Structure formats: C-alpha cells, structure tokens
C-alpha cells in the first residue's frame, strides 16, 4: 500500500467536488470494510481518500410517512438492531445481520455495501425485494434511483463521478406479507454466500398468492430480482410442484461464475434449491 492523501469534508458539496473528477484518483470511504482489503491487495490505488464520517445527516434510521429512511452511514449492526427496522422490515434486519462478522457489521455501512456493488453481498437482494430506492446527491443536484436500476456489473453502479449515496428509502411492507432471507454457506459459516435468496410472499384468505417476489445474490455479476418466479405463483394456491416450477424460472435470470464458492453449475442448481426452499417456507409448503 502506498501513501495516499486523506480528506474529511464536513459539507456535502465539498465531498462531491472532491470526487467529481474521475481522473483525480479520489475514492470515498465510509466504513472501509470493503475498500481496505481492496487497497491491501492493490486492486484499488487511490490518490485521495475522502472520509465520509464528518458529513452531516447521513447516520439516521427513521420512518417518514411510512417509508423507512436509512442514512448511508448507518452500520449494518445499527440497521439489524434497530427496533424500527425489525418491526417493519424484518427481511432487511435479517439480511444485515447475515453480513460478515460482528466486527464487520459494527464498522461497515449499509450505504457502502450498496454502492460497493459486490454481487455476493447480503442486503441488496433484500432491498430489491422490498422495492427500495436510493437518494443520490451529485455536483448537479439530487436524484432518486430504484435499486433495481442501480446495479450495473461487478463493483459497478449507475453512480456518476461526484455522486454520493445519501440514503436508502424502503417503502412499507404491506400488511400480511411474509419475508425470509437465506444465505447459503456450504463451506465455512464465516464466508460470503455461495448464493443467497430474499423472498416476500402475500397470500389472501384462500391461500391464493397475491404477491411474490424473489431476489438473488451470488449468482451473477449483480444482485437481481427474478420477476418471472413471482409471476408464476401469483393467482395460484401454492403447492410443492408449483413452487418447484416457479423456482425453475430463476435459471433464466442468473449467470453465475465458477470460483472458490462453487462452480457455475453448482451455483445454478443451488439458486433453484434455495428459491424453492425460501418460497416453500413463506407459503407453508413442505419442500425437500
């Protein structure tokens, strides 16, 4: 690691200005849990690190008009431990609780996690399923981007140079929805997911599915929603066979790579297994 300059702006405009020039080699740093390993491996060689911790107003977790608003500097532990989040968005609480270890969760931020765009991370599939969006500030003003449009590729989002994620907005979960997050860890319990699945299901009084959503991480270059899976269940009374058929549709939207966590074929097979298991759990249908 070579010497880098470090700045700690106290105003947002100052921070966006510092990172506006893509040739400047400036990098934002929030919790640093993603950036520091990349620095040590030499994958990122910034000239300037712009620390975010003195930027005002980015730490809160609150509910505004029913919408959960999480400042981008809130840590994973703050989110997973928040009574507000646990009560209204338990899926997000479980996904944040599944991140790394307690040390990582206390240091790493949810905002940093999202803009890092590591396709194996835990919170993104949950945020996708929950229909979250990101409020982003840049030198030219602010914009709001739905998370389903945010992720582009491995380590790549739609954020432009000079843009900073300010907060994540998560709409209310309709009454009666059930949600679950499954992180598949076939090797060590201290690992990134081989694949992970976030799910949401709502059934009416006749057990007919009115809403079903599935998000998948670890099975491609970015976390994704699998709308065809949910669509196949909506209007149905779920059965094991129906869930298996619906889960098969995940195959069309994933594109896993072979790595230390499994071959592409294994991840493909496991994505289907865990989509099936997640939906089975949410629909009270026994699944092998």
């Amino acid at each position, binding site marked *: 690691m070579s010497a880098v300059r470090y700045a700690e702006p106290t105003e947002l405009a100052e921070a966006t200005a510092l990172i506006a020039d893509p040739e400047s080699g400036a990098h934002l740093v929030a919790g640093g849990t993603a950036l520091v390993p990349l620095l040590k491996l030499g994958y990122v060689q910034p000239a300037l690190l712009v620390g975010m911790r003195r930027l005002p107003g980015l730490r809160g977790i609150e509910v505004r008009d029913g919408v959960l608003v999480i400042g981008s500097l809130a840590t994973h532990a703050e989110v997973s431990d928040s009574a507000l989040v646990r009560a209204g968005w338990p899926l997000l609480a479980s996904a944040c609780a599944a991140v790394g270890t307690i040390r990582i969760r206390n240091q790493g931020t949810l905002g940093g996690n999202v803009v890092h765009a590591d396709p194996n991370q835990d919170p993104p599939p949950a945020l996708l399923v929950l229909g979250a969006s990101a409020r982003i500030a840049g030198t030219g003003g602010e914009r709001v981007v739905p998370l389903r449009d945010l992720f582009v590729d491995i380590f790549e989002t739609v954020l432009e140079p000079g843009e900073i994620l300010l907060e994540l907005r998560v709409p209310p979960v309709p009454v009666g929805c059930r949600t679950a997050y499954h992180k598949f860890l076939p090797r*060590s319990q201290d690992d990134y997911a081989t694949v992970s699945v976030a799910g949401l299901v709502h059934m009416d009084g006749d057990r007919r599915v009115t809403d079903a959503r599935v998000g998948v991480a670890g099975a491609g270059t970015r976390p994704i929603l699998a709308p065809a899976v949910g669509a196949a269940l909506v209007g149905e009374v779920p059965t094991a066979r129906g869930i298996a058929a619906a889960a098969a549709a995940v195959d069309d939207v994933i594109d896993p790579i072979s790595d*230390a966590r*499994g071959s592409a074929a294994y991840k493909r097979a496991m994505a289907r297994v865990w989509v099936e298991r997640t939906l089975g759990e949410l629909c009270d249908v026994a699944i092998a």
Partner: protein
Amino acid sequence: MTIGTPARTTGPFAEPEVRVDGRLKVTGEARFLADRVPADTLWMASVRSPYPHARVLHVATDAARVMPGVRAVLTGADLPDVRFGRRLQDWPILAFDRVRFVGDRVAAVAADTPAQAAAAAAAIAIDYEELPPILSIDAATAPGAARIHPDARAYRYLGGDRPPVPHPNVQGHTLTVKGTADIEAVLARADRVFEHRFTTGRQHQGHLEPHGASVWFGPDGVVHVLTTNKAPFSLRAQLATSFGLPPDRIEVDSGYIGGDFGGKGLSLDEGVCLALARATGRPVSSVMTYADELQAANPRHGAVITLRSGVDASGRLVAHAADYRFDGGAYAAGKPMPALTPPGPLTSLSAYEIPDVTIEVTVVYTNTVPAGHMRCPGEVQAAFAGESHIDLMASELGLDPIAFRRLNIAGAGTTDAAGRAIKDPRAAELLDLVARDRAARPPVEAAGAISGTWRRGRGVSLTARHMEGGRMAVRMRAHADGTIEVVTGIPDQGGGAHTMMARVAAAILGLPVERVRVTRRTTATATADLGVGASRVTYIGSQATAAAAAALAERLMELAEGVARTPVASLGAAGFAGPEGTIAAGYDEIVASLGDRSIEVEGTYDSETHRDEPQDFNFAAYDIEVEVDERTGVVRVVDAFLAADVGTIINPVSHRGQVDGGFAFGIGAALLEELGFDEGRVTTVHLGDYKLPTTLDVPVLRTAYLETEGPGAFGAKMAGELSVSGVAPAIANAVADAVGARVTNLPLSPERILDALTAAPRPAAGG
C-alpha cells in the same frame, strides 16, 4: 473445546500450566519478527513471474534503479547458481534462466520504505518466452515431457548424496517393502483384491504470521539473520551452503513464531535479503504478504493415491500395495527428508497387521507452487486414502467397519511398513473405546428429527503415527538468586515447548516452576539441534531437559554437602535432605554461596541410541457423526469422539489445545481448505477465498485417553500431530454411511458430495 479428562490428575503435572510466554504474548511484550527489524532497515520487494513456465530473456532494471529511495536492484544475473533449499538446493534465489511457477522470483529491490521498494519492483520490465507448462502429476512423467530442471545434476544436496530418481521430473522416490518382495504374486493368491484411487488437493499451513526475515552484516562480517524459521541451525547450514559462507559466520535468531504448522521450516526471503544486505551494506527486511504466502510459499502436496489390498477368505488382510504420487511443485526445496518425499505414507495402515506390504512413493516436479511440509506431511493424504480404503473393503465384504478393523488390528509383534517394530500397540483398545462410546449413544437411525433431505451417518478412522526423534541438548544453570535457567536453541512456535522444559526441570529438581526460566539463544551461543518439527520436541526436548536437571541436581547436592558440611541425599521443595530425609539445608542459603558464579550443566538426548528398540507410535481412533443434505451436499459435523493413546501430559492446557487444534485442522483439510488453480496460477489469493475453519465450523470434540508409556521424560508422548489426519477419512466414511455416496477427493466439498450422490443415488429403501 475438548470434553474429557487429562490422563493424570496427580503428580508433578496435574496443575494446569501457566505458559512461560503467556503474559508476554497477552501484553504484546513478546515481539514477533515484523516488530523486531532494525530501525535503519531497508525493505525488500520482488518481481514475481506471471507465467508457470518461461524463459527469462531480459530484465530491464534501469528505471527502477533511479527511483526514490532505491538502494539496490538485483536480478538472477547477479546471483548465478545461487539456490536455496532445506535438503536439495534447487530453488534459485532469483531466477536466472527460467521461471518455473507463477510467483517465482525474478528480481528484487531494496529501498528505504516498503512502498518505495514495491514501486521500484513494479517498474522492472521483464521479457519472457513462454514454455509449455507441466501442470499435473501425470504430465510430469508422460512420454516426451520437458525437463523442468535440466541442470538438476549440478544442484547441491545437504547431507551426503542425493538418492537416485527414476525420471528427471521426479524429486524423490522411495520403494519400501515389508515381507515378500513380489507383492503381485501375493495379491494374486488372495481371495479378493480391492483397488481404490484417491486424490487430494493443495492446502496452505494457514499460520497467522507470514514468513519474514531481516538480514544484515555486522562490522566483523558476521551475517545476522532474524527469521520466522523454526529450525535455526538448519537455516544456518542452508545459507552457508547457498552462499559459500562458513556456518560460524552466520548467526540465526528465530524469535517468537506466530504459528508454524510445518510451513516455517522453509525460509523463503532470507537468501534474497542476504544478497541485498551484501549489496547495500544495510539491513534488509521482508515480511511476506498473505497473497504471496498463498501463491508462492510451500503448501501441502497434492496427491494421486492408488491402494490395492488382498484379503483372505476370513477377511484378513494379506497384502497391501500402495502407489503414492505427490505433486511436489516447481522445487523440492521445502522438503527436509533425505529422500525428498513426505513421510506419511509409511505409517499408512500401520494400525493393522499386514504381512506383505509394498509402498511406492513418487514426488514429481510440476510448474506449480512448490510443495513443502505441513502438519502431518503426507499423512493427511495417506490416512484419507487408507482409512477410506478400509471402509470401502469392509462394505464390499459386507462387514461392519469396526469389526473389519478389529479383525486386522495391529498387536504385539506388528511392524509398520518400514519394518519398525511397534512398541505396545494399543489400537484394539482404542476401537473398544469407540465401540463403547457408540453403544452409549442413541443409534443414528433414531436421530430421526432430521427432516426433509438431511441424513445422518457415522464413520470411524484409525491412524498410527511414528514419533520421530533426533538429538537435542539443553544447558541448565543454577544461579545464586535461587533461579534455574534453561538455555535452549529451539524456538517455541506456539506449541509450548519452553513451558514444557520449565515444568520438566522443576519436576526433576523438586523446585517450584516459578523458579525456572527458559532462555532461547541464537545459533551463536545455543547448542545445535534439529529445531522444531515432526512432533519430536516434547519427546527429545523433555529427555534432554530431564538429563540436564538430573545432572544439575547432582552438582547442587555436591555444593550443599560442601557448604553445609553434611551428607545430602536428595533435593526437593523444602530444600536439601540428608540420608534420613531430614532437611539439612535450605535451597536459597546453599545457592546464595555461589555469589557471582553459577553452576552450569548440559543435558543431551539422542534417539539414535534407541534405534533398534521397538518404536513409539501414537494411535488415534475417531468416531464422527455427520448430517448431509442430499439436495446441496452440505455436511455438518454434529458429533466427534477421539480415542487416543497419550503419554504423560506435561502441559495439560497446551495438550488440549494441540488436540483441539489438530481436530480443527483436520476439519479444514476434510471439508474446506483447497488452493484453487487456473493454468498453474493460484486463484485463492486471500483468506476471504481460501477458507480456514472458524469456531462455528468446529464442533465440540469429546475425548477418551489411554495412558501409555511414551518415550519422553516421565513417559510423555507427542500431541501436535495426533488428532489431525484421522478427521477426513472418518468424515468421508460418515458421509458414505449417511447418503451412500463415496467421495474420493479431498476436500469433501459439498459439490463433490452432490456429484457423488448423482453418480450413485441412495437406494430408495435407505431413506
């Protein structure tokens, strides 16, 4: 964590030890290499080959030489024919004609800061001509295979002549025969012959502290070497040979070592730091990155193992023929054994009585990271194959795995494959302990709370390990202030050797252990020995310490007789006693008479003097219960029981740590750890991808110990390599029991288990 009782709850070692280095390590006072480098050191950085096999055509260093802080740049041209290695010196300090693996070092820089050194190294441009790489064991000896080491005949070999090899791409080869030489004829007469093939991957030692070194020339020309090497005298001999220096002009100082697990026997950076120190006149230091550790150190050998065994009509093993082929990587430098082979295969199936055994071991060169020794070298691979083979045979014969083992168990008069008589083999009793423990637990079938696709199974393994010896000497001093000083040349790499020495000395002298301090000396002043390895330290170190303490007690009693002018017959906690047992003089008052003097003695022990006697082996039997998810291949180890013969336990806490740590190590080998490769390049370059087991991955280990008389002082035996190698086969056997799928590749990844399940689906009735 272990549940179980130590073998002895009385006697001098009943009280749990307080580690002599414990407080120093907890408070950070114990300084490791990276904290000990001289204040004015330069830092080394190197350029490593991106190709598995290539000719080095040109190395352009001009740009690097003029960069800020750069003090020296060296290439292979500066160090022609300078190679290093523990036994065979085949690894160039800097590659001068060709590179042989991704990570081979081609040029090196010394600069004022690590960043300046790295920047300069990055500015060195190298032209290569790629050569076809040899990337597998089979390719190494295939007809027409290119020679990886065309100049092998010129390489230096430490300690006599290098044993002959059957092929230029073979590092080492042994053929060990017990009984009938014509094993094929014996196999042909057997009622049934079973053949099974196994493969194992490459595994890194996973020590927390990476390799490091700091080297400088003193004003008198003596080379000073701070190192993480666990065998300082061996390193001194290797450096002396590499650089043509007299050994007494090199001082090697191995300080506290942050984990070893076999990996710290080979030094990687000392040679290049020495060359740069000579070029600059300054200290030059290096601490390897973990990426370099995983790509360019000396991980465990991969193996392809074919085992054949003949069985008679009664189920008795009559013959065993084993073919072990190991991937030795680009260099044999990491191997200390004379034949340049890992020793494990020779003790495979030593827990059984087999009259005719032939074991062939071949280690080949490939264009991959060089292989070295790792805790239970060759034994993890051999035990996985051997104990899976035993279960497979039992299954094909329709016998219970424990019953088949009992039928063939080693007993009085059994010799191992190398023909060594086994002293007091109590393997049968270990199987009894396993069977008794099993009987007391609910049957696996009754554990039916497992829902859906999860299945349970149990598997056993039985392993034997020969305890290696050697020669060791320690010096011991009685000082006037009442303290005893033990002076040793061996570093304590975390195993607790220094604490063991303090406790043995105190026990022999009858003094409180608080009076004993252990001083580690460098090669300049300590007595030469082999260093740490092969689980020999507790055995020969306790004996050498006991010999020194006994000699010191004699000298102290002579002193007491002189000072107190009365006959003295014994020394104990209360002081010196006369023939009737009454205290004649207090300890402190007698030694106070020494004033500025001290009494010094030396104690030595050499296992060679016992070579012709029956040899000491450790036996260990595992019974492991797993749950396997048939849809994902995931294995959960839910229960593990170890029955082992242990000697007198000197350090109860460290002993438990070694047994528990060995079990965790075995879990890593069994289920998780494997270096990934792509065209010879290691793809798992950090510990986020190369996973070691965590506490959540390792269940509680239950133990039952048999007390046996070991070869060490007070009957001690080794512990460090007792509980490692039996884990993988017990888990493989348990997985086969659970789901009917046999995995013959290590590690047993979920994917491999799923593949095996697909190939051999469990019969429907078994569900």
